[in-house]
């Protein structure tokens, strides 16, 4: 797993895998206790070679959470029996499909899929995880899930993510205690784990003294030579100018960090910055056949151009010494291509270190 993540970074950063692994450990050491404090259990008996602070949106590759996730606590070599439990009507998690992916991806047989129906939402055929999360505060729902899990013969049970940050640790703990089974989350894209992590990260950032400026769109940048002095941002209906000594442009949207693209080239790139299209981490090559359309390729692979230290590169080739880029605003860091929040956090960490080191 480590190699899988190291390789794409290596191709962009131009550093040796060892130094990247070292930085990754630093990041883990910094984040894990702080995220734990915010309600994400991070101190489980996870296997370090499998655990990364990442979520690539896949049900089997890795997870943001070492305790309640299949790679954190679930050692597939244990040969324990595993069941996946779906909730009828819950969008985004199909245990039959997930079980077949598990089987084909990790060569593990005997993973069984089950469905249960939550009585409180019986009337509906399609609900969202957040609705289940909301309703699972009411004990009948939680009790029903617990009863369903108890009825299963398997020792380890995978359920979809249904608890928000404030209830997550408590409720998962309750379920494990009440059922006597090990329970893990099967991470599905566009669902609660991302929300939980984002909320926890924002709270950690605030506690560490960061002032978060969320929801702003950079629309222009003033610079002279290799040094930028201010950025003009749009806050929906208003425009503001922010002066800075150093800045990291970090954005985290599913595709290209929120840079809107048209068919041929990136659109809405902050002037005077340069963009790349078609550049991908080396291990995740996007071929013509794997992404069917030019528009999709363009969307997935667009990002702001940087040098090896994440300094931004302008259209005329100037490298700005006090502006850095991190996260999915970098070319090729779009979630559907398989590089997710781990890449966003890791590149932010490296960019911040570079910014601090350069005085």
């Amino acid at each position, binding site marked *: 797993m480590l190699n899988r993540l190291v390789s794409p970074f290596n191709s962009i950063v131009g550093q040796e895998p060892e130094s990247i692994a070292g930085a990754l450990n630093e990041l883990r050491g910094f984040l894990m206790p702080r995220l734990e404090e915010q309600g994400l259990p991070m101190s489980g008996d996870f296997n370090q070679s499998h655990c990364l602070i990442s979520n690539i949106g896949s049900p089997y590759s890795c997870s943001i959470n070492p305790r309640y996730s299949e790679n954190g606590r679930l050692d597939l070599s244990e040969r324990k029996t595993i069941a996946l439990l779906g909730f009828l*009507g819950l*969008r*985004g998690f199909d245990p039959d499909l997930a079980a077949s992916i598990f089987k084909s991806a990790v060569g593990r047989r005997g993973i069984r899929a089950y469905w249960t129906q939550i009585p409180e*939402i019986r009337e*509906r*055929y*399609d*609900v*969202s995880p*957040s*609705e289940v999360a*909301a309703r699972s*505060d009411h004990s009948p729902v939680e009790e029903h899930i617990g009863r369903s899990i108890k009825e299963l013969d398997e020792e380890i049970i995978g359920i979809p993510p249904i608890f*928000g*940050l*404030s*209830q997550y640790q408590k409720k998962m703990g309750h379920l494990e205690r009440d059922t006597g089974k090990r329970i893990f989350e099967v991470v599905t894209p*566009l*669902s609660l784990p991302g*929300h939980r992590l984002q*909320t926890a990260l924002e*709270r950690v950032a605030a506690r560490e003294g960061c002032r978060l*400026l*969320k*929801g*702003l769109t950079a629309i222009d940048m003033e610079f002279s030579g290799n040094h930028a002095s201010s950025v003009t941002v*749009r*806050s*929906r*209906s*208003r425009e*503001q100018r922010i002066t800075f000594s150093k800045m990291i442009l970090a954005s985290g*949207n*599913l*595709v*290209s960090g*929120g840079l*809107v693209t*048209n068919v041929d080239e990136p659109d*809405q790139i902050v002037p005077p910055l340069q963009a790349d299209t078609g550049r991908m981490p080396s291990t995740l090559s996007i071929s013509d056949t794997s992404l069917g359309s030019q528009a*999709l390729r363009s*969307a997935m692979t667009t990002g702001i151009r940087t040098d090896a230290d994440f300094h931004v590169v302008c259209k005329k080739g100037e490298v700005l010494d006090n502006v850095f880029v991190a996260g999915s605003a970098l070319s090729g860091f779009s979630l*559907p291509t398989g590089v997710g929040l781990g890449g966003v956090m890791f590149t932010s960490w490296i960019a911040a270190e570079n910014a601090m080191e350069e005085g």
Partner: protein
Amino acid sequence: MKDHLIETSGCIKCGACINECPVIATEGVQRFSGPRNLGVDAPRFLPDIGATVDNIMMCTTCWRCEEVCPANLPVPEAILHVRRQIFSAPNMLHGHRRIAENIDKYRRSVEPRNTHDQVSPRGKGEVMYFPGCIGKERIPSIYESSVGVLGKVGTDLWIPEGWVCCGAPLEKIGDWDRLRMLREENMTRFEGRGEIVTSCPGCTSHLIAHYNLEPLHTLEFLYEDIGMSRLRFKPNERTIRVALHHPCHLARTIGPHVIDYAYSILNEIPGVKLVEMEDPGACCGGGGGVVAGYPDIALNLATEKMRKAREVGAELLLAPCPFCVLNLGRLDSLEIMEFISFVNERLE
């Protein structure tokens, strides 16, 4: 419609808008088919679009779908365009008809109750205050507090005599004929306006988008024009645990900077212990004409919001939006207060 059709053609079908839609989260797609269906897909089948009227009016116009859209598509605006296209007076929902009738009768979106102006600055000062229908007629303390706060910080204020509803509720229900009529009436009353301040994010956004004016929400005016140094608060009486709701039309149509201003002000008020509820930007159900059209949906969303505030031990929930206060105030599970009213209470 044509422009929005073109703009929304960039949809990559990722489902982010569906996953984040608060109405789907509480009601399910069986009842509400969601932003992608209504804003992106439905306009492509214009001849049959009238059939979606019951569905499309459930959107609270919270702007969350646009916020999470990787392609940055103007989905809420597309939905509002569809509402405009399918508007037909005879087919209006009962609650929406009541809004239209109130407009015809009183030139306000709600029936006037606050018949006596307790605070009535007249004349033409430097700053024009636009009270808005809910703050003036439903929760007059908002109007009184806003005028009170602006007076305390030394603003030379005036209120346009005979002002009428800005038209924001009419835009939400698709009634553009009445909307234009109100705009014309207001513009004659706004002559000599100077700077404009409003209490309502809906009014602020509407005056920007449809009047081509540049009004400030009260929070923006206090933070940007008055400045924090001129806000003097009373000494602490007792500590109170306060949660801040981020109204959709404040954070997502005026801009998220206003939420930062709100926190900056709260941090200066002695005795305020801020508690952060989960997803403070989640819609309370108060917007988009849903309170009038589908009060049950609005109540479900409000219940969820109150639950989240209680969960973190809040004793008071503040909302810088009259519509949110109106909707959340239908529940008595937690004290809810409009932001400026709280500031007025604490300001020296």
